[in-house]
């Protein structure tokens, strides 16, 4: 069985020293090993941004696509080969701005994949513009007078889109994050894990210290029941979206793959392409 070291490769990330994304990379590598995967059984599909580079830093099958489209690519991979463990990943701009439409529909669709958002409340790669996750009043290069748009709440959106697994974490909490990713991978359906991942270069407001002060861990609520949808929504609102931990999980809904009529448990990619003469004749006979 592979250890987390086998999910490492010899590429040096081009992230700034101190960037939150490093720990997310480590957490994915640990979680993959902990759930017993081999590198070839994992496909990491990422978007574009500083965060999007992550697929190149993990020793597994990696696909670094285009801005905002990690999720549809990942869903295509999963449909083609449901034996693979598929992780999609990218920034908050990637998933909640340009790719928001895909995020909502991927949640509704509920394919058995895990989506890890590396949420730094800013655009890193393009050097510091506002993101849908930026706070109102947040000053960036593109909002010199401060953002005048409402901050997006991905957790609320996920809940209302019918998510079956919603979690949030902080990149400094390697242990908690690793465990959530493991649970996400094991969850039979779509798992959303939003991870606060400070951008030390462009975001001087939402810093490590700021997160430490503002985060509300679910560990504080021993009676919290993550299968209670209404309680989950309430808790998210009460904490202004700063909640961390496994917020909601629905274990009764089947994954999309399990509901497709005629879809086999084996990978579609491994099935024979050729039609028999008989199958062909039957298809043709309808046009007579």
């Amino acid at each position: 069985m592979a250890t987390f070291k086998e999910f490492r490769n010899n590429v040096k990330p081009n992230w700034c020293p101190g960037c939150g994304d490093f720990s997310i990379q480590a957490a994915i590598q640990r979680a993959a090993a902990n759930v017993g995967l081999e590198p070839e059984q994992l496909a990491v599909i990422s978007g574009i941004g500083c965060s999007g580079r992550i697929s190149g830093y993990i020793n597994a099958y990696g696909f670094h696509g285009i801005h905002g489209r990690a999720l549809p690519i990942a869903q295509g991979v999963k449909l083609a080969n449901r034996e693979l463990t598929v992780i999609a990943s990218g920034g908050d701009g990637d998933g909640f701005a340009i790719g928001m439409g895909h995020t909502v529909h991927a949640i509704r669709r509920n394919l058995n994949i895990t989506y890890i958002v590396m949420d730094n409340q800013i655009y890193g790669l393009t050097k510091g513009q506002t993101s849908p996750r930026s706070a109102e009043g947040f000053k960036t290069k593109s909002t010199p007078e401060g953002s005048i748009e409402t901050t997006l709440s991905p957790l609320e959106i996920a809940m209302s889109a019918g998510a079956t697994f919603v979690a949030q974490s902080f990149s400094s909490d390697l242990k908690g994050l690793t465990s959530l990713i493991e649970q996400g991978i094991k969850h039979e359906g779509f798992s959303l894990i939003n991870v606060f991942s400070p951008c030390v270069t462009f975001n001087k407001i939402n810093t490590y210290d700021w997160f430490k002060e503002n985060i509300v861990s679910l560990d504080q609520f021993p009676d919290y029941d993550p299968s209670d949808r209404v309680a989950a929504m309430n808790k998210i609102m009460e904490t202004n979206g700063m909640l961390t931990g496994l917020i909601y999980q629905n274990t009764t809904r089947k994954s999309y793959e399990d509901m497709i009529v005629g879809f086999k448990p084996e990978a579609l990619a491994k099935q024979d392409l050729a039609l028999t003469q008989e199958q062909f004749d039957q298809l043709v006979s309808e046009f007579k």
Partner: protein
Amino acid sequence: MGILISQLSWKIGGQQGEGVESTDRIFSTALNRLGYYLYGYRHFSSRIKGGHTNNKIRISTKPIRAISDDLDILVAFDQESIDLNAHELRKGGVIVADAKFDPSVPEGIDARLFPVPITKLAEELGTSLMKNMVASGASWALLGLPLEVFNKAVEEEFGRKGPAIVEKNIEAVKRGADFVLELAGGPLDEFKLEEADGKQKLFMIGNEAIGLGSIAAGCRLMSAYPITPASEIMEYLIKKLPKFGGTVIQTEDEIAAVTMAIGANYAGVRTMTASAGPGLSLMMEAIGLAGMTETPLVIVNTQRGGPSTGLPTKQEQSDLNAMVYGTHGEIPKIVIAPASIEDCFYDMIEAFNLSEQYQVPVIVMTDLQLSLGKQSCEPLDYSKIQIARGKLVQDAPALEGAELFKRYEFTEDGVSPRVLPGEKGGLHHVTGVEHDEVGRPSESAVNRRRMMDKRLKKLNALEIRDALRIDAPIEKPDLLIIGMGSTGGTIDAARERLKQDGISSNHITIRQIHPFPADALKPYLEAAKKVIVIENNATAQLAGQIKMYAGNSEKIESLLKYDGNPFLPLEIYKACKEMS
């Protein structure tokens, strides 16, 4: 008894949603049984209910692939259908109209009118829904064709619903037939068709042939977003793919459709998407991703009137430049244009093979008339279905240490070995960023040049079936007529008339739109006195490709039509005669 005719044109018109489609379907299915060649044209608007719609079919004892200039029989469910279409009737043509609206023949039109109480006869049998049966029965009777064949078609259409329903419908057919025969005094002699060869052809629309071809090609997934005139492809495949373990997924938009297809192709399943102009525009960035990552991808673009929403239910061939030039940067890409219903089938097999052999995006372009016009199709040959997956590696040898699979290895022909995720010895990275042989980002100038050259040279060896479809019987013709897509049959019909006028012509259909097959075309351009390029767009996009790649600009003229309607043989004939 008069002389037998070899072809005839029939049209049915009414409000959308009142049975025009089904009347046509039953009438033409029965004709197909007798072995006639059929070629249909649907005129419809983007409203679902209401709004005039009509279906026209040409019936012939010989293969035909063009709508006719004129019309022999018009069946009208309302006066509007008469007013809008009667001008097409040839002298002495026939109108069968519902007596309900007190039909009249517009002034100046020489046609015989048979008012048949279509709605009333149907209602007498219990429901006005059976209008289609009465109307098609009346049409059938006027042609003097055997009623048993028609009844058999009815039986098959309604068999599932039980014998009572079948009987009712057969009765409706009979009442329509009896009534019109009484009025006309028996079948019309001048519409007596020669007997057909009795060999039943396949009868389908281009989109169905595309769907069928895709399954034959091993396509098992389709991700798509509905749009006219592409939707029938997904509607056909969702009925069939589950039988082969696959599925169709209706995505949130075309960007998701195409990127999902890229993901699935990357993971090893032949996957396609289909759309029309607006969707194609949304797919452009992703087409570049497929080109850059050398991921196979098949896109069908069923062209309709653009730009923007344009004429969404009308004929046009104006996306050519978008398909050839669309996406930023430079990638190898193949654009092929089926020119017949049979091509729609075989080209899909070719498209999937090419996309894997060359690891490039392949766009199959049709136009609305080819996608939606229902027509006879020659038997499809099972033995011609070959699946070729190119350099797909299975059981790649184990990798040593930090070594990765050279997914983008520099090779003689530019095509590198491909491996699917899940393979132990195949680990590599894929990125739309410029990359090295194992797929890792690289900004090295040397690597950049080599990688660009590697990708772009892949198509140097490209060979496709009938890149040009050549009908060139004349060594030095007065005219070389060039077209693409659905226009070929119309061009051929016009050429027959040109020949009678002593104008000699050759005809080439361009099927490989990109990369442009210039060398193969040049000798024919050179041999002709004049070249006329015929296309359904306003800016002569195909002629532009020809001039750019194959020269001979001085002798190339264009015949363009962009009013939303397909060319008619007469239009092409007249224009060519004038230009010759």
